[in-house]
């Protein structure tokens, strides 16, 4: 399973590295969301700083949807999914591999977004480890849940409109917990932050387990 996962992750990442869709579309989109939300909130520096955690996470969430759509689109070519299915690779391995590829891209994206909020909103994170742990856990959960829902919508003509409707409510707990942890990390209130980390852990574990179990049946349905 792990070997298969590495193979699939390598394949997806190589495609991303060559096509540069993530770099030239998803990353600029994430920065665009930052700027648009800043327009919506107004130029007041202190209110922007208060809203920064939420802006960071909402930008991440929207970009995650794009990353998932991209991850599905990689296999939307004629017979590509069948090829992957017939290759004898363990479905759980495919799931883990695709999730790992999406997760790595999301980590890069978060670095850019972090730099973005620091630069644009003059945000300084006081408890850096808390923010980093939140990002890592959230990435884990977002990638697992996202790839699972991506597989659910794969092969549908209405995929692009259906996926956000299906996946955004599911990702909402990450938005909530992530913003709270970041607020705590910005203000230096560590204990309040660790409380909310407790949501991110089960979220990641649930979607990891459910994904490993259900990816096989889903793949046959695509």
């Amino acid at each position, binding site marked *: 399973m792990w070997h298969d996962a590495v193979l699939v992750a390598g394949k997806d990442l190589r495609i991303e590295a060559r096509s540069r869709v993530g770099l030239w579309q998803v990353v600029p989109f994430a920065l665009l969301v930052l700027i648009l939300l800043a327009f919506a909130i107004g130029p007041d520096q202190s209110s922007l700083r208060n809203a920064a955690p939420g802006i960071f996470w909402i930008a991440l969430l929207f970009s995650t949807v794009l990353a998932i759509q991209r991850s599905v689109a990689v296999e939307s070519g004629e017979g590509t999914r069948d090829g992957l299915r017939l290759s004898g690779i363990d479905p759980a391995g495919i799931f883990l591999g695709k999730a790992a590829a999406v997760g790595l891209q999301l980590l890069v994206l978060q670095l850019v977004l972090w730099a973005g909020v620091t630069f644009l909103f003059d945000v300084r994170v006081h408890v850096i480890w808390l923010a980093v742990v939140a990002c890592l856990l959230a990435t884990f959960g977002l990638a697992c849940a996202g790839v699972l829902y991506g597989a659910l919508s794969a092969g549908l003509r209405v995929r692009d409109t259906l996926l956000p409707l299906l996946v955004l409510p599911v990702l909402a707990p990450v938005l909530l917990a992530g913003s709270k942890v970041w607020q705590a990390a910005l203000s230096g209130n560590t204990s309040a932050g660790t409380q909310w980390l407790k949501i991110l852990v089960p979220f990641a574990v*649930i979607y990891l387990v459910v994904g490993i179990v259900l990816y096989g049946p889903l793949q046959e349905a695509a």
Partner: protein
Amino acid sequence: MTAIIKAWRPRWLVAVAVAAVATTALTVWLGLWVTPPDEVQGNLARLLYIHPAVATVALYWAGGVALAGSLLYLWPRTRSFVWDRLAAAAVEVGAVFSALTLVTGSLWGRPVWGVWWTWDARLTSTALLLLLELGYLALRRVPADPHIRARRCAVAAILVAIDVPIVHFSVDWWNTLHQGGTILDPGFELHVHGSMLWTMLLSFVAFTLIFVWLLAVRYRIEVLQDAAGDQELEISLTERWSEDDQLVGVGSSTSGPDDMGSP
């Protein structure tokens, strides 16, 4: 479409319908006329005869049936469209009850809490449940091969069901505005007394019967839709074949002018 579609219609369905109407009428009578107003909340407490029962149906009955049906469909030994249709019916009825839960809760929240809506864990997670259910229904409407659709939807329903325990435990996990369990608190101590308790329990029976009734009717509609789909396919096939026959007929008659042209 002249042929009659024979579909599942059990006799007990009528009995359930009659019982649902009777218990609902009784709940209305007890709830509005017999029971006294509450000491603290006055007449607002009468919502107690609707909201908890509706929420129970939305969460546990609908969620449970949807989850069980989906698992039974995905399990290869029990795979049957019966479970797929049952799960779909449960999610649809569940969505109606989730919406009703939010509406009735909101109606009560305005006078008691002072707001229609509050960003409370239980309210928020229930709203998410409704959105997840709507997502499932959207997925179900996407045309696909029945087997593929059933499998996809079964997975989606299991993912929706993950939210149910979150709604359930939200009042214990977070400090919320919403109160905890109504009849029994975790210490299993009765809080509601006398005629109010009986009316409330009756409302649970009434809404459960309504749920079973709606579920059965929705299941029947699923059966009819599937049958209608099959029948439409057959009809269009036969039409197509008869068109071919006519074309063959036209083809043979087109040789007519040639015949006439010849002396």
